[in-house]
């Protein structure tokens, strides 16, 4: 019986070691978006301020994500348009300052890709949004000794109308594509 308990304790210890926690690097993590503009072109923008945490369980190829985006940090290269995007017409950043994405269902594949099924919350409305993760790369930071970093690109799409962001539909597109470049430092 003592041997069984010892074995279980050792396995639990190994599992705990395999699960690693990471903190998002805000200077190398930017959610980018694409949206159709009046049927003419695709407009690109991004959010400049993002923070959050990742947990990766390498032993079980699973993980969790908790990301918070500052809605007022939206940037399209034109201040007047950014003011409009943060206004009640779109993101209503003064009333709903945070956009969040949370998932505890991350499936990591052997080919360094992953599937993330989580909930995106915009203006207080939460809806499931899946992200496809490409090319998970981890290793020691070449310029910061002793710092272990994981990075990847994720993409997904959703309809803004699902979150109550209905202004100027359908002239300005409903479907938004997300591209998130993420780097996270192991704690």
């Amino acid at each position: 019986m003592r041997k069984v308990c010892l074995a279980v304790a050792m396995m639990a210890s190994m599992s705990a070691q395999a699960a690693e926690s990471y903190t998002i690097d805000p200077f190398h993590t930017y959610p980018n978006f694409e949206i159709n503009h009046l049927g003419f072109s695709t407009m690109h923008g991004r959010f400049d301020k993002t923070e959050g945490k990742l947990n990766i369980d390498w032993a079980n190829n699973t993980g969790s994500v908790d990301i918070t985006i500052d809605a007022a940090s939206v940037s399209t290269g034109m201040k007047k348009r950014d003011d409009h995007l943060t206004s009640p017409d779109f993101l209503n950043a003064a009333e709903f300052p945070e956009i969040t994405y949370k998932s505890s269902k991350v499936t990591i594949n052997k080919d360094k890709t992953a599937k993330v099924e989580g909930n995106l919350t915009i203006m207080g409305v939460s809806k499931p949004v899946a992200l496809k993760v490409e090319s998970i790369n981890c290793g020691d930071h070449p310029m910061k000794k002793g710092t272990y970093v994981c990075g990847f690109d994720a993409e997904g799409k959703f309809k803004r109308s699902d979150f109550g962001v209905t202004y100027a539909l359908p002239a300005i597109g409903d479907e938004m594509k997300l591209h998130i470049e993420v780097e996270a430092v192991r704690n």
Partner: protein
Amino acid sequence: MDELLNNPLFQSALLPFVVSLVVAVILRPHGWVWAGLSAVAGFAASVYLLTDFRFFPLSSHRKILLLGGGAVILGMVLDLLPWRRITPALLFVAAVAATLWIVWPRFRAFDGWQLWALAIAGPTYVAWLVVSCEALRHKSLQADSVVFALSLGTGLSALLGATALYGQLGSAIAAAVGARLFLQIIGKPIVAGSIMLVPLVAVLALLGLGAVVYAKLPWYCLISLALIPVMARIPLSANMPRLLHIVISVLITLLPAALAVFLTWREAGAPPL
């Protein structure tokens, strides 16, 4: 058809004007309590197209529209009340409570003088407009002029101040009241009553304050907009021809509205399209 229903000019100008005009013609013979509903109906038609009457997530503009719905009932009750002495106090308390509900989420974001300005100046602005405009309920032309000027001033300022939705809502009220001014011009004025003034002025006052708090409308524009009810009280000669009387009454109230739009344009520039 969808293209027409999604056209901002149809949503915020043509539809509220036509609905208000038709309802006014229908209600005109019924007099006091009901006639003021014409502009409210025109605005409600516009709100339906702009929001589908969806009230979740409960953001500031949806709260404002809900309060507008409640204010219609309050206005109707005030029109039916036999005693008027408590009306200003009642409206003042209601306006302060409504304003605090709208700006409450921003209290956490402010401190110091900004917090006090929001807590005191915001409710004062809304209460002043509601109480001073409601007092014009017997004066059809002044009531229509004041709401027309306030809606144009608030709507265009909000549009320039980077919230087109607020701008469209303000413009819709301008179009709805424009129909009533049209009836004034052709010699068939209809009474306004509290049923029109309380909800429409409350919505406009809260939209103006909301555009300051939740968008980029410069705060000092509200000072200019607050002068509109004062301008409406400037006495005009009773011997003036009717058409000239209407034009001057509208132009006088439009002066502070135009100043507010100019101040916003100088600060914010043209809206991005």
